[in-house]
């Protein structure tokens, strides 16, 4: 037994160590993905009999006005959400000062990170309330007509994204603060001796060292923007009349409220494709730049 182990240790160790994570990954992630794609070819209410309908669900998607509203909102989410790493970096640079008082300020900025998204949603809903909300009160103070952000089909998505940005910025801030603490002090000192300061120092000395952190922050932000669901569910339930719905919410709405698991799965598949393509392009781009930089 022992001898068998000694002889085969080299190839068996990785297999044993990889078994659990791989099994989990395959059974909890890969298999459900395959299953969802499979379900998207069926007409199914979630519990009853299934009927194969081929590509009909996808054909219906293309004639479904709501689908395009969702895609449009997803684009708004991605573009606006990319402000989170930018704001996060700015705040991190500002907060990264060796002052005792900064701790208090930092913790203030961390607050949204410890709050559950549902709470953030509720707080912002009250904030936007067109009668009793702070926003309305402030607008009335300046004798402006209060805007009902969450009831306006043009503003509603932006209103929710701003609530989400608040939390996402705090998340990026933490990442960047960690990155800043890892900066090579000697490099910065060398830069200063060579006369670099302000913008030049940031652009050529600090930012290149933060590349790995920025990469992670961006990827996580993009994925977060695509799968966002909780804030929409809490703040508007996709409304008014579906105008703040994104693909993830539409999938939920179709599956749970309309009893159409097949149609919901088709939406999920499209969302999965968009995510995969986006991440593939992003990864390729970054890896290429990385290899060039090296």
């Amino acid at each position, binding site marked *: 037994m022992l001898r068998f182990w000694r002889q085969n240790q080299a190839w068996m160790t990785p297999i044993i160590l990889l078994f659990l994570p791989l099994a989990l990954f395959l059974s909890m992630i890969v298999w459900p993905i395959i299953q969802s794609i499979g379900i998207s070819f069926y007409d199914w209410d979630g519990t009853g009999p299934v009927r194969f309908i081929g590509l009909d669900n996808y054909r219906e998607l293309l004639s479904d006005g709501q689908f395009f509203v969702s895609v449009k909102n997803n684009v708004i989410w991605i573009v606006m959400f990319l402000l989170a790493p930018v704001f996060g970096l700015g705040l991190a640079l500002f907060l990264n000062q060796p002052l005792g008082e900064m701790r208090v300020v930092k913790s203030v900025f961390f607050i949204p990170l410890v709050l559950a998204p549902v709470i953030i949603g509720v707080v912002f809903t009250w904030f936007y309330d067109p009668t009793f909300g702070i926003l309305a009160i402030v607008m009335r103070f300046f004798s402006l007509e209060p805007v009902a952000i969450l009831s306006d089909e043009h503003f509603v998505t932006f209103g929710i994204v701003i609530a989400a940005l608040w939390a996402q910025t705090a998340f990026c801030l933490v990442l960047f603060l960690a990155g800043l603490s890892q900066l090579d002090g000697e490099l910065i000192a060398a830069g200063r001796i060579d006369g670099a300061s302000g913008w030049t120092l940031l652009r050529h000395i600090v930012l290149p060292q933060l590349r790995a952190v920025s990469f992670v922050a961006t990827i996580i932000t993009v994925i977060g923007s695509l799968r966002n669901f909780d804030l929409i569910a809490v703040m508007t339930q996709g409304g*008014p009349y579906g105008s703040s719905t994104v693909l993830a919410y539409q999938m939920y709405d179709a599956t749970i409220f309309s009893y159409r698991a097949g149609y919901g799965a088709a939406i999920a598949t499209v969302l999965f494709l968009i995510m995969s393509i986006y991440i593939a392009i992003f990864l390729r781009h970054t890896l290429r730049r990385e290899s060039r930089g090296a």
Partner: protein
Amino acid sequence: MTPNFSRRVLLKGLGIAALGLGLLQPLIAPASAQETLVINTDRSGAGQKAAMNKIAADFEAANPGVKVTVNYSDVESYKTSIRNFLVASPPDVAFWFTGARMRAFTKRDLFEDISGFYAKNGLDPSMAPFLPAVTDGGKQYMMPTNFNTWGFFYNKDVFAKLGVEPPKTWNELMAIAEKAKAAGIVPFTIGTRDLWANALWFDYLTKRINGLDFYMGLMDGKESYTDPRMTKVFDTWRVPIEKGYFLDNASSYGWQEAIPFLSQGKAAMYLLGPYVLTSLPEDARKNIGFFPFPTVDPSVPNFEQVSINGVGIPKGAKNKELALKFLAFLAQKENLLAFAKGGSVVPARVDIEIDPNDFASVQMQQVRNSSGSSQFYDRDTDPDMAQTGMKGFQEFLAKPDRQEAILQRLDAARKRVFN
């Protein structure tokens, strides 16, 4: 030597764990010998919760060895979770809506057939009027617990200030609205974020303009949303919308969030159910009056909106016998009355004496005066259709000029759902 040793430790550990599990087994078993009845319910308002807790405690006292667990959930989240728990972790008793909402589950074989229950407990005659609502394919799947009607709740102070009386006709209602609007008061408060409150306007106008048969045909997908009769409904509905009689930005508010406008006198009326009363504190309740939906077309009888709630036994329930026993217990006059009273609704038994001072008697009178009734848009039509429809009504309230596009969208959904 080391790997061998650690393996032995591992084996020993596994052995102890197995032994431990084996020892635990008999410990778990006696606990389940005492019967547990699990009840999932969305009747979680303070009054009904207190009544339910008392009924559960009384049931435990009457059946030694039985433990009742009641899981309360709020109405809106219950609507999404029930689908899950009926399949994944069915309780022994589940409260739910009757009608199409129930049939959505019986069609999928998720509720137990309890047809024999009524005769066995002598409930046939007293519950007879409510049985059609819990029947699917000639079998009964739920026990009706209570029903409620809908209508206008108004602020008495505001009406006194405007010098108006509860209206009898649609034109009178519009006249009051005009007066209120002129006085800077919102005539109709409404919260459409959770969609359904708005469907009341649709239901009432459709029934009162085109009659109950047309309405039921529409619910069953036999009549079209692009029918000229539908256009008439929306043209009527559009008048108060375009005149700005409804609360602005209604979709920013849930149905409950719109109630304070009424109680604070910022709004005059709210077309809703007795939930207006149960949502308000005792002293605010005194200032709220009620009148039924006024006559729209004198040639069409006054059809009403009567929603029946019930309770059923999921197919996967573990203690079906005990669950039936509980239903029979709940059906006893005093229990059913106490339960209904907690929610300002009417018990679903015709042989229960109702306190004439209670709001239940007003609702009872409303049902007696009606020429027929349906339940509610999302309980009478297919859930998929209901979701699309209610979104359309929400849009109509905000953008009445999109009437044509909305009706066409609804009809496309109708064709898809009822094909």
